[in-house]
């Protein structure tokens, strides 16, 4: 078991995890209320992956997310209010309403626009790593993808080149067992869909309990250090589980109840909370206080976003091409 961190660090991680949980649950209810447009791909249940991977990343390190980006973005430091405004398609959204739930990001904190094409962000992350390498920077790029993406051609083209060129990229497979509604067992013969396909490209890999934030964070530390020091990429496969469906209105009828029960009992937020108390890193009162502050922050963002104006229609025609003033 990893060494338990100091109080500030433990509470810092927990705060981020609880923020993601609260944000995603609030989004779900807003969606059920019928006041949120579009679709949603939620990340609650996978908070330990996002926070463990990104907690020690520098602001000038980059992160490439997927169609399920909220946890990654919040962990990388995108503002809750800008995220919420984007969900409502408002002008103050992090992408001005041009992006939506699957393309959130804020380059100022190193979160590139999230990518809604499965595997689409993999070669882009390689290119970012290539740029860092050519610029002789010690930055790294963390690139998330799902279990299903490991079956894409882009995965194999990217890993071959990343291993060859020793790119400073940490590739993170969040293996939540399902590609949309299809069990990964039906589409890949390997138990570890990404990690078992790492050595063939000369890339070191680890399989990690993705619901244990400290285990994820420790593996992240090793991979980031390797990338930063010129040692090349790592593939981390984090075993985790969605608490919600693939997208809106998915009741997960394809998931066995016993499987859900097994994973829900390993809820990453509850586990880490219990661990903090067990280690004596914080009192129940301190945690409740932290949680109430997070809930208030999310609630404030919801009310703000509801009331915020939509972008002017003409803005739909802007930013097709880059302008210096943009």
């Amino acid at each position, binding site marked *: 078991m990893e060494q338990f961190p100091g109080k500030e660090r433990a509470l810092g991680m927990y705060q981020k995890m609880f923020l993601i949980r609260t944000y995603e649950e609030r989004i779900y209810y807003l969606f059920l209320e019928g006041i949120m447009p579009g679709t949603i791909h939620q990340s609650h249940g996978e908070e330990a992956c996002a926070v463990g991977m990104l907690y020690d990343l520098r602001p000038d390190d*980059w992160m*490439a997310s997927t169609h399920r980006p909220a946890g990654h973005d919040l962990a990388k430091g995108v503002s809750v209010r800008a995220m919420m405004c984007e969900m409502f398609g408002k002008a103050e959204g992090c*992408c*001005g*309403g*041009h*992006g939506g739930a699957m*393309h959130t*990001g*804020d*380059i*100022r904190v190193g979160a*590139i*626009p999230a*990518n809604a*094409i499965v595997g*689409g962000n*993999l*070669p*882009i*992350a*390689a*290119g*970012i*790593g*290539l*740029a*860092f390498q*050519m*610029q002789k920077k010690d930055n790294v*790029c963390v690139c998330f993808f799902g279990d299903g993406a490991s079956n894409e*051609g*882009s995965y194999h*083209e*990217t890993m*071959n*080149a990343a291993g*060859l060129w020793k790119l400073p990229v940490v590739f993170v497979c969040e293996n939540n067992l399902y590609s949309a509604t299809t069990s990964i067992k039906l589409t890949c013969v390997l138990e570890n869909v990404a990690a078992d396909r790492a050595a063939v490209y000369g890339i070191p890999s680890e399989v990690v309990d993705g619901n244990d934030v400290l285990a994820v964070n420790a593996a992240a530390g090793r991979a980031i250090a390797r990338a930063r020091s010129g040692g090349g990429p790592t593939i981390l496969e984090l075993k985790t589980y969605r608490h919600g469906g693939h997208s809106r209105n998915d009741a997960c009828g394809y998931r066995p109840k016993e499987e859900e029960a097994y994973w829900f009992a390993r809820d990453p937020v509850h586990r880490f909370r219990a661990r903090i108390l067990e280690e004596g890193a914080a009192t129940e009162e301190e945690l409740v206080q932290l949680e109430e502050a997070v809930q208030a922050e999310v609630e404030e963002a919801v009310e703000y976003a509801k009331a915020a104006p939509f972008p002017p229609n003409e803005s739909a025609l*802007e*930013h*097709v*091409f*880059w*302008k*210096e003033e*943009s």
Partner: protein
Amino acid sequence: MAVLSIAEALKRAIQEEMRADPTVFVMGEDEDIPGGMGGAFTVTKGLADEFGFERVINTPISEILIAGACVGAAMAGMRPVADLQYGDFLFCMMDQLVNQAAKMCYMSNGQVKVPMVMRAPCGATNRGAQHAQSLESYFTHVPGLKVICPSTAYDAKGMMKQAIRDDNPVLVFEHKLLYGGNRKEAGQLNAVGEVPEEDYTVPFGKAAVRRAGGDITIVANLLMCYKALEAAEVLEREGIHCEVIDPRSLVPFDYETVLASLEKTGKLMIVHEDHYNCGWGAQLASYVAEQAITLLDAPVVRIATPDVPIPFSPPLERFVIPSAERIAQAARELAKL
């Protein structure tokens, strides 16, 4: 002033931009491998001698990776210039070009830019259906991509420099029969021309009037521009005066120069090697119909490759690709109207 082939002019442009800007680099398959060709058409031959393989990057045969790495590197401050060998391979990287490169700036509301150049050799050259296509029209349909097709050595250097300096993804279509490199092609044209030694750029969205005339406006790109000029020469002797316009860039497109020409001629012929159905000529024809139909004295004539894959057999290929004779004959009919 040097007399250069298009292949040499493209190389000069890339070379000068690499000297001037350390963020510019070349990537692709077979880029200046010692003993190799320098891409498929010699453009990148010798670049590694000057810049090393750190900036002349040989990739695996992985088109998704090539395009995606360009997108990522461009977002992170570099200016990649990728070589496709054959434009037909663009289809292997369509997601990265259409869903990623073209949309990053827009989806992010202008947070990120993607200054990348994708060089795509095109045109039928007795290589069969998968190494023959003229693909430029596909990409004119994608908001966020710029599409250029230089047909002279002067434009090749000036437009390539402009493409490398552009802050958006630019697809450069280069015709295989116009390169004039050391790699000989059956049916290639001598497209060498005078190219200034000094730095200059040719802006996008400005067509070139290659020949002035008052009877028929012929808009034709790449190899077809030369075929149109050949036809115009013949027609001149018959008393039909053609104005030949080379659009040079398809996105942005210089409609103004075409409309100004139609003010004189009232007759429009469009020629491209791309297929007939939804080729860029269809867009130009409908634009003229919408915006300036009163300028037309006769129906628009479109000469294009028929909607068949490009056949291998040389006589069959010659049959489907528009020829100077076919252009001249259609022009004679149009002149009568």
